[in-house]
């Protein structure tokens, strides 16, 4: 067992736990945001750097702080480790920089995008980013690609989190989907638009934190916040059959997997459940789904955020040399969002 302190809150965790998992055990607002880490996918994480934290004390034996912010999803805890997330202004500034980099090539077409309203990147930018962009150059542009007849890939929006690649690798068999090229020209590809016809390929829509992979059967049908999520299940021979239905009126517009409080899919569902069963009679309704953290659907999502930020500002002022901290750009000014 190791004792780790995150933002002043201590928790005892088993050895080998990552800082992110330890933070999730504590829960609440101190959990670092994640884009590429997914608890159900092995070897995910480490690409996006949004979950960075500041380690102010390495361990009980070696109390030196770590020289740079570390990715909490990949760094394991040590006994006596002290970690700062929200309480470190430097770290929040660094995270704002990460968000700015993620948004460099991401088009600001949220009014068009189907993911808007339940988009991890949208939430991340609202909560940790800056209001404006300094980028003045053309963004990457790709033609839209159809992956099979039900999934559309819009590479413009991709942030290369590799979640869909891990899904294709670990959930489906016979992998035909990966990342080609490197660096600035890297893109998700199916090797010359090979159709993916696998029973579980639809799960890559759910794991995509942005609107790069979208459900073509739901395309432009409705904005997310007009639909009502309901948990439902059915007897399915291929998958667990536990899904979330998105209703508009009496009509099921979309079927997705269920997500946990961190927006990560809990049960993989098969394509038949996802794309074919769009009638209420196909399902046993359990009740309205509780959308907690990952969506504007939850009431006053950004309002509670404002309160949190005001609270952080108060804490910051209490820090030593607080008056010297210049965050600049009004990045965390609640009135500026």
């Amino acid at each position, binding site marked *: 067992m190791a004792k780790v302190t995150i933002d002043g809150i201590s928790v005892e965790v088993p050895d080998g736990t990552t800082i992110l998992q330890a933070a999730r055990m504590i829960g609440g607002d101190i959990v670092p945001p994640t884009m590429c880490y997914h608890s159900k996918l092995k070897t995910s994480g480490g690409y996006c750097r949004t979950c960075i934290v500041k380690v102010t004390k390495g361990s009980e034996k070696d109390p030196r702080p770590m020289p740079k912010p570390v990715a909490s999803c990949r760094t394991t805890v040590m006994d006596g480790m002290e970690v700062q997330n929200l309480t470190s202004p430097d770290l929040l500034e660094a995270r704002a920089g990460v968000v700015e980099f993620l948004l460099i090539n991401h*088009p*600001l*077409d*949220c*009014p*068009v995008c189907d993911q*808007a309203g339940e988009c991890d990147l949208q939430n991340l930018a609202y909560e940790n980013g800056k*209001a*404006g*962009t300094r980028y003045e*150059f*053309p963004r990457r542009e790709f033609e839209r690609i159809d992956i099979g007849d039900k999934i559309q890939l819009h590479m413009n929006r991709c942030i290369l989190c590799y979640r869909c690649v891990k899904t294709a690798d670990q959930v489906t068999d016979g992998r035909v989907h990966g990342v080609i090229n490197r660096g600035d020209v890297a893109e998700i590809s199916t090797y010359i638009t090979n159709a993916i016809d696998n029973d579980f390929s639809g799960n890559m829509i759910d794991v995509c934190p942005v609107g790069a992979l979208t459900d073509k059967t739901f*395309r*432009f*049908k409705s*904005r997310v*916040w*007009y639909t009502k999520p309901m948990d439902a299940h059915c007897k399915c021979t291929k998958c667990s059959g536990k899904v979330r239905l998105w209703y508009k009126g009496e009509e099921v517009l979309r079927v997705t997997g269920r997500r946990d409080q961190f927006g990560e899919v809990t049960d993989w569902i098969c394509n038949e459940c996802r794309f074919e069963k769009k009638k209420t009679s196909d399902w046993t309704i359990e009740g309205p789904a509780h959308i907690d953290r990952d969506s504007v659907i939850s009431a006053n999502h950004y309002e509670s955020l404002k309160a949190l930020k005001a609270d952080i500002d108060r804490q910051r002022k209490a820090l030593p040399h607080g008056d010297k901290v210049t965050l600049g750009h009004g990045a965390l000014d609640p009135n*500026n969002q």
Partner: protein
Amino acid sequence: MALTNRSKTVTVRELTWSEKLYLPAIFKGMMITFSHLFKRTPTIKYPDVKREIAPVYRGQHVLKRDEAGAERCTACGLCAVACPAEAITMESAERKKGEENLYREEKYASIYEINMLRCIFCGLCEEACPKEAIFLTDRIVPSSFTRGEEVFGKDKLVETTESPIDVTLRQRPEVLEFKKDKRHYHNRTFKDAKPRINKHH
């Protein structure tokens, strides 16, 4: 039993002789009528004459097109969310190849309706619009005989390329100062580096 203590008993009084003649009363009434012939009339003969309106007047909406003549609206639904009267409904559709000159983004509103009877002309739709597509203008919503005619579709809302609607009247310095935080970078393309703003600005 009286409900209040303010009730008043009405009695019919017998008319006097001069009142029974009726002529003085008729004469008195005609005097009032004729006197109005020589007074200034407050009636404005709309639409030949138009009343002067305040610069912040909010009238019938317009859905603007961009400089190339493509519709700006992408059916994002934020105006409908912002609308306190729930007057706005829309349905979106995907732009097909070859329609790039008609719609600016890959999604557009195939149906866009504002119920002018529900609308309270608050201007929140204009404020919410991220694409600078919807504006309230200085035009008065015409009256009609049926309720159905007051639901304005795209045929009445979208401006034509031949006769663009001027929306500059309300875009006064104070309004622009209020809107200054809405820096619409995404409404700018890199092909034409100048900001995509209204032609009339």
